[in-house]
């Protein structure tokens, strides 16, 4: 216990703790939207496409997260464009952007001279090395998401539930869809440092699956998934620290265990 309290006096741990809170809120809200709307696969495409931006940023010596943001937003819009304007099947256009981003990332990381030190932390995340500027960006994202969802909660819910009906009632559905896909892109990228490109989808889906065991109401789902996400990230963080194993993977593993236990509990109750 003493050791646990002592942890909080460390600067790196305070930052990790804050990023866990920020990640839980943004992923709790955006993940609920993604899961309810069944666009997990789109989000996966955006996530992996962002690796292209990371690679190019490495090559040019820029901030990798900025490269990732540009690529994530571009691929989010690109997927929409391919699907709705070019007539390509949606799952195919997702796959195209998904693999194109990864391919570009690999090429640029390869031709970048020297060793690219943080590459692994972008792929698999490392919550213990989050920087101040990244923390500020996560904070800003949380403010944007919370504001957007409190102002437009009903419209977002109605569009997600029945897009055609919303359109017929005169809601500018396309505009909301674009804004939300951009928010998804930003959420994915800014949480990459917590669990990494490969694992971020889990933070957007497992807490929601767990919360869904207890409620089928959109708002309660948001609140509960945020709590489960926080529980998972914090326990994962502590376990990874004391057992000295990678934090991203530990967080995911913890989330799955929590889901599994509660699923069994629901089954026998």
């Amino acid at each position: 216990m003493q050791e646990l309290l002592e942890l909080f006096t460390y600067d790196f741990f305070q930052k990790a703790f804050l990023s866990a809170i920020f990640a839980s809120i943004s992923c709790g809200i955006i993940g609920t939207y993604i899961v309810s709307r069944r666009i997990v696969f789109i989000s996966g495409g955006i996530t992996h496409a962002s690796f292209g931006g990371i690679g190019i940023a490495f090559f040019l010596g820029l901030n990798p997260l900025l490269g990732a943001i540009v690529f994530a937003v571009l691929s989010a819009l690109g997927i929409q464009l391919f699907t709705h304007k070019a007539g390509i099947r949606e799952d195919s256009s997702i796959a195209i952007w998904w693999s194109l981003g990864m391919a570009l990332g690999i090429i640029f990381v390869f031709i970048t001279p020297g060793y690219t030190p943080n590459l692994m932390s972008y792929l698999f995340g490392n919550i213990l090395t989050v920087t101040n500027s990244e923390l500020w960006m996560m904070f800003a994202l949380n403010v944007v998401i919370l504001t957007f969802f409190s102002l437009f909660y009903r419209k977002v819910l109605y569009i997600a539930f029945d897009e055609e009906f919303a359109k017929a009632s005169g809601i500018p559905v396309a505009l909301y869809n674009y804004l939300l896909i951009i928010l998804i892109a930003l959420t994915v990228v800014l949480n990459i440092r917590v669990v990494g490109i490969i694992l971020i989808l889990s933070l957007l889906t497992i807490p929601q699956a767990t919360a869904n065991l207890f409620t089928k109401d959109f708002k309660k789902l948001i609140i509960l998934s945020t709590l489960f996400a926080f529980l998972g990230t914090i326990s994962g963080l502590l376990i990874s620290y004391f057992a000295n194993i990678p934090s991203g993977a530990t967080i995911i593993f913890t989330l799955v265990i929590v889901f599994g236990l509660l699923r069994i509990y629901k089954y026998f109750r």
Partner: protein
Amino acid sequence: MEPLIHIKDVTLAYDKEAILERVNLKIFQQDFIGVIGPNGGGKTTLLKAILGLLKPIQGELIFSDLIKKEKNPFGYLPQVRHIDKKFPITVFDVIRSGNLSKKRNGANKKVEKEKAEFLLEEMGISAIKNQAIGELSGGQMQRVFLCRALISDPKILILDEPDTFVDNRFEGELYEKLRVLNDKMGILLVSHDVGTISSYVKTIACVNKHLHYHLSNTITNEQLEAYNCPIQIISHGDVPHTVLKEHSH
């Protein structure tokens, strides 16, 4: 009298393939139109054009001032098979989603909630208010969607197969309800069950690439053939040769 909607020489298409060609129809406040026709004949497409979800590639839809001044002039009940049954939303929220008044202040919200409560009561489904949409039976779900269509006090009620997934008892109740609602609003009802709706609707629109408007609620097989409108024949009663009840001139 001026029609609420005047569909004038309208052609509708998806990807340039015409689904409906040169359709003409006038819809009035007191109308109760049964829309029938084969699958893929363009029934839903016609509804989408009225709702503004699909722009005609030819012709125009002329709306009366009564329609234009309303923000939500149409009450729409879409086909339930397109609804995601696992979506995390409660019955109460679904019903409220039918009302999208521009100003969302406290007073409007209160009125909206009261209206939703009133409709729940009227449909006899107050007990399921807080249930998730996926936990309902077919009949309950259709009632919920009817409430959603009605909460905005529409001028025209547009129903796309409200009789799917429901039992006979609910079907009868539903059509009785529509008959009462017809005093206040025009109704456009798409259905497969031509036999049952014929005793409730006032006129019939046969839709199969073209639209033939039949100014009576009785229609014979021969007439359907003449309209090029082959539909699944479900005979009700003991008159095997007529789809609907016979003309009684």
